[in-house]
């Protein structure tokens, strides 16, 4: 479906394509950069309960909420740890380890604070705060005596002193100036003063949360454990962050001297009343994360034992599961926390926040626009690539050179990388553009360039793919099949393969079967061992092994199937060799039966050579005999001619008698030469003209032909012909010669006055001719001897015959496919000729009748 038209290509001139490509890269680079920047900005701008949306107001933003929550937590812990344990003069009377943990906690979280002679005072440039702890005189005394023995006596003394003056004792800390809050005011006055002074605040007092904030945003919830009857609840309690409020939170302490705080934080914060040097302290501190080193030293698990290493003793049981574990709810009713954003500051933050939001939106808009533009450009380029492919444009960069699988893989990898957003985790995008640092700027530029280059590569690859697919080169551009082919070819050229190739098919089959057995055996054994040991640790390995064994077995079975086909070819080849037929099936050079076929071919060649050699030698023999007989005939011709001339000339009686002898001998020589020649021809099997004939008729003709000789011989012949007809295949002239020889032989060598028996019968599927006579000479030779050439029954007789009569009879009979035997019994001479009868089908018989 190649498009020849230049019109289609006209819409995509080179310059336009290059321009479109550059624009597409720039736009998609811009899109990626905008997306990355916007996404990074959204982390700090997003809504807490809806992560894919951003919060447009700073007061509701996550950032602001986190600040507020941290402040609240800090103030709560300060109130519980410090204010609740100070005397009237603000001298800390509580556990010193708790205090050190508090300081560490502030440092660790980079909370601003200052240490004054009146204790720890948080410093915040964002919030005005007020925290106080009010201790009822008697309740405080009771609690203290129960909880902490070390401070017991002092506190009791203090409280007793306070009780005299007032009912409650309140200690507070604040960053407000004394013109707003002063020590001289009562707690109630201070609180009403605070509420009056600030339009937006959060107040926790008497376990009640009051909020006058326009928005503190909403968080999801946090969970903590409650304490009931000295035991921690089994389940966590979830407390939600209500809109504009913070969760109330609480705390508890336990029998291991831990103070656990749940004030607005997901994770409880723990302080330790015992030093690390004591057993209890060590147990308590080692259980979870060590705050000081921020390393996990022990992850509690549900085990029942305890072990010890160089880091200390570890209880294998969770601390909550320890038999002496007890938890006590901490008192929070005296705690008062007030937080208000500093006047003016919130507005300032809000302005900055709003700018961030607008930047975010700007990036989002840029992203949308550049995405649309990039898409348009890519569509244009894709169309250009398709048209270019259909037009079979030549001379394109890399066209067809790079394997298509590589291109597809690269396209998928780069595209998925760009879409997955891994690239967006680059941190410099969070910085606002107006205050960006130099290094962040460089980072941005680098990122932009990286995005641009990746997009460029992606678009370019896409175009290459489209051009390949629509250019009809898809099939050719696959590199993997080529690689496999090349590897296969390489393998085929190696010595190992050459060796394997020459292994006979049967051996190959044997080896493969054994290998398959071994591999399946290993797999089965592995499964059995696995089941017996009931250990499933190596389950994957075993499954892999079984899978591999299965794949191998199937592969081998498939190969054996092909081998079986090849072996049938081999059998066909053997059959062809057996029947001496041509074998024209193609046997590939890498065929598995190559070795066997090669051997067979060489046998076949050897056989053919032998046959040819034999034929050649037969031909040579005939030629030799022909030449010899010719060479004999020529002088013989002269001899006979001149003897004849001699006979015609006037000779005296003696000479005439000599000439007569010469004449006889030369005639005999003549017949010997003729017989030798025809005998040689018959034994070599050439010059035999097989035709269909009737042996009975042949016999009759021969007999009739010899009738003169028979009557003149004065011997009696007894004929027995049982058959009317005996169709055989044979050379008529040769068989006539055989019968003639046998009759002549019988006439010549039978005893005077004896009878000669000629029998023609049928035995099974053969016609049998027997000539029997009583020899006139004692038989002093064997049956084998008599059919050998030049052997005669009467060794002394010299007249007539070449001595080849029976040899010729035997050779001619055999040349016609029959058998010729001599049987000797006393003086009884018996020649037996057998020829297979050719069965004539009814139809043929009818046809013959029609012809006749």
């Amino acid at each position, binding site marked *: 479906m190649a498009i020849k038209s230049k019109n289609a290509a006209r819409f995509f001139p080179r310059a336009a394509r290059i321009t479109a490509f550059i624009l597409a890269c720039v736009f998609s680079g811009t899109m990626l950069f905008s997306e990355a920047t916007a996404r990074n900005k959204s982390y700090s701008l997003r809504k807490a309960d809806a992560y894919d949306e951003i919060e447009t107001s700073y007061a509701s933003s996550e950032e602001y909420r986190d600040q507020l929550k941290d402040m609240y937590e800090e103030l709560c812990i300060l109130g519980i740890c410090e204010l609740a344990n100070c005397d009237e003069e603000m001298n800390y009377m509580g556990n010193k380890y708790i205090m050190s943990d508090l300081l560490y906690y502030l440092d660790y979280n980079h909370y601003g604070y200052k240490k004054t002679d009146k204790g720890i005072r948080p410093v915040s440039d964002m919030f005005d705060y007020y925290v106080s702890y009010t201790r009822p005189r008697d309740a405080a005394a009771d609690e203290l005596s129960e909880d902490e023995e070390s401070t017991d006596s002092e506190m009791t003394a203090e409280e007793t002193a306070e009780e005299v003056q007032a009912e409650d004792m309140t200690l507070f800390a604040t960053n407000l100036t004394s013109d707003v809050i002063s020590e001289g005011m009562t707690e109630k006055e201070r609180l009403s003063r605070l509420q009056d002074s600030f339009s937006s605040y959060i107040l926790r007092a008497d376990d009640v949360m009051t909020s006058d904030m326009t928005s503190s945003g909403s968080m999801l919830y946090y969970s903590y454990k409650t304490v009931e009857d000295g035991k921690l609840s089994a389940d966590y309690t979830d407390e939600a962050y209500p809109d504009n409020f913070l969760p109330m939170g609480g705390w508890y302490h336990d029998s291991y001297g831990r103070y656990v705080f749940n004030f607005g934080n997901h994770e409880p914060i723990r302080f330790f009343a015992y030093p690390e040097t004591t057993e209890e302290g060590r147990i308590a501190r080692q259980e979870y994360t060590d705050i000081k080193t921020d390393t996990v030293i022990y992850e509690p698990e549900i085990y029942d034992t305890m072990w010890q290493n160089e880091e200390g003793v570890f209880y294998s049981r969770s601390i909550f599961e320890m038999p002496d574990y007890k938890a006590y709810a901490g008192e929070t009713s005296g705690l008062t926390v007030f937080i208000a954003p500093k006047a003016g500051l919130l507005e300032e933050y809000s302005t900055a926040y709003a700018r961030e939001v607008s930047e975010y939106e700007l990036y989002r808009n840029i992203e949308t626009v550049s995405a649309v533009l990039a898409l348009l450009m890519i569509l244009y380029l894709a169309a250009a690539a398709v048209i270019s492919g259909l037009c079979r444009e030549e001379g394109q960069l890399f066209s067809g050179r790079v394997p298509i699988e590589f291109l597809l893989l690269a396209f998928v990898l780069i595209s998925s990388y760009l879409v997955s957003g891994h690239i967006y985790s680059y941190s410099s995008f969070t910085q606002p553009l107006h205050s960006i640092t130099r290094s962040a700027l460089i980072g941005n530029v680098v990122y932009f360039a990286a995005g641009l280059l990746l997009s460029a590569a992606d678009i370019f690859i896409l175009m290459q793919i489209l051009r390949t697919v629509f250019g009809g080169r898809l099939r050719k551009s696959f590199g993997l099949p080529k690689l496999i082919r090349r590897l296969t070819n390489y393998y085929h050229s190696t010595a190992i393969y050459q060796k394997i190739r020459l292994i006979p098919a049967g051996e190959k089959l044997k080896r493969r079967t054994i290998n398959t057995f071994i591999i399946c055996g290993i797999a089965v054994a592995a499964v059995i061992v696995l089941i017996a040991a009931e250990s499933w640790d190596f389950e994957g390995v075993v499954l892999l092994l079984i899978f591999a064994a299965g794949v191998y077995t199937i592969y081998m079975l498939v190969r054996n199937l092909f081998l079986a086909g090849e072996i049938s070819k081999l059998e066909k080849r053997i059959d062809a060799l057996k029947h001496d037929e041509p074998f024209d099936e193609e046997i590939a050079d890498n065929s598995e039966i190559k070795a066997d076929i090669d051997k067979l071919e060489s046998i076949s060649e050897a056989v053919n050579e032998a046959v040819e050699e034999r034929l050649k030698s037969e031909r040579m023999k005939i030629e030799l005999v022909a030449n010899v*007989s*010719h060479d004999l*005939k*020529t002088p*013989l*011709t*002269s*001899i*006979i*001619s*001149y003897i*004849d*001339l001699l006979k*015609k000339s006037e000779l005296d009686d003696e000479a005439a008698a000599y000439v007569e002898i010469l004449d006889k001998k*030369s005639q005999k020589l*003549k017949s010997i030469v*003729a017989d030798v*020649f025809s005998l040689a021809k018959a034994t070599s099997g050439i*010059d035999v003209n097989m*035709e269909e*004939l*009737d*042996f009975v*008729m*042949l016999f*009759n*003709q*021969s*007999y*009739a*032909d010899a*009738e*003169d000789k028979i009557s003149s011989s004065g011997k009696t012949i007894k004929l027995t012909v049982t058959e009317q007809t005996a169709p*055989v295949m*044979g050379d*008529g*002239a040769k*068989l*006539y010669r055989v019968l003639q020889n046998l009759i002549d032989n019988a006439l010549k060598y039978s005893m005077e006055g004896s009878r000669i028996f000629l029998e023609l019968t049928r035995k099974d599927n053969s016609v049998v001719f027997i000539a029997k006579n009583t020899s006139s000479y004692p038989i002093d030779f064997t049956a084998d001897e008599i059919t050998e050439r030049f052997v005669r029954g009467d060794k002394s007789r010299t007249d007539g015959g070449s001595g080849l009569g029976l040899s010729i009879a035997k050779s001619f009979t055999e040349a016609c496919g029959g058998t010729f035997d001599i049987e000797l019994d006393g003086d009884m001479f018996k020649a037996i000729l057998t020829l297979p009868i050719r069965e004539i089908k009814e139809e043929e018989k009818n046809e013959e009748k029609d012809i*006749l």
Partner: protein
Amino acid sequence: MEQLAAKILVVDDDRDIVAAIAKLLEMEGYDTIRAYDGIEALEKLAENDIQLILIDVMMPRMDGLSAIMKIRDKRNIPIIVLSAKSEDTDKILGLSMGADDYITKPYNPMELIARVKSSLRRYIQLGDIGSINKTDVIKIGGLELDKSAKQVTVDGEPVRLTATELKILELLMENAGRVFSAEEIYRKVWNEDAYAVENTVMVHIRHIREKIEIDPKDPRYLKVVWGIGYKIEKCS
């Protein structure tokens, strides 16, 4: 007789054989010209008025067959091949090259003379008379049967046949080339049912052969197809 003056060219590379044949022929009253290879034969043929050629096949310079082909381009005189090659294929080859007869060595001198006479007779006597087409005359080679006159001649020489022999010959000559079994011949000639008639027919056949063939053992016309029957060769 005029044919006694006939000149015969004897060609053979064996000078003794040539001499023997020449002597034999001369004793019969023929003139002979001798040649010892094909080329010499052609020269002698051009120089003399030759009536018959006796030629060997295997000769130096030019072999007999090539010489026959050259002679046949110009002349129509009888050619008898005289060769030691006795194969049927050799005979067929020689005859198809244009030879009139084929005698194998070692030849029987009597037979040789008979064949020479026969060929000459055919050439000089019958050849001259040419082809007087009698409708009742069947002619196969030198064998002629005049059905109305009940007369058979071989190379012009009359042959005496009995009535049965004539009938058999007529049957075979009318269907020259076709093989007849003994039974068939019997049925057609004797007009009786045939049973074990091989001998009867064979005896007649043998008698006919003795009368019409020069060498009854190697017949030219009436042939036995062993095991099948009898036929008269349909020759040119």
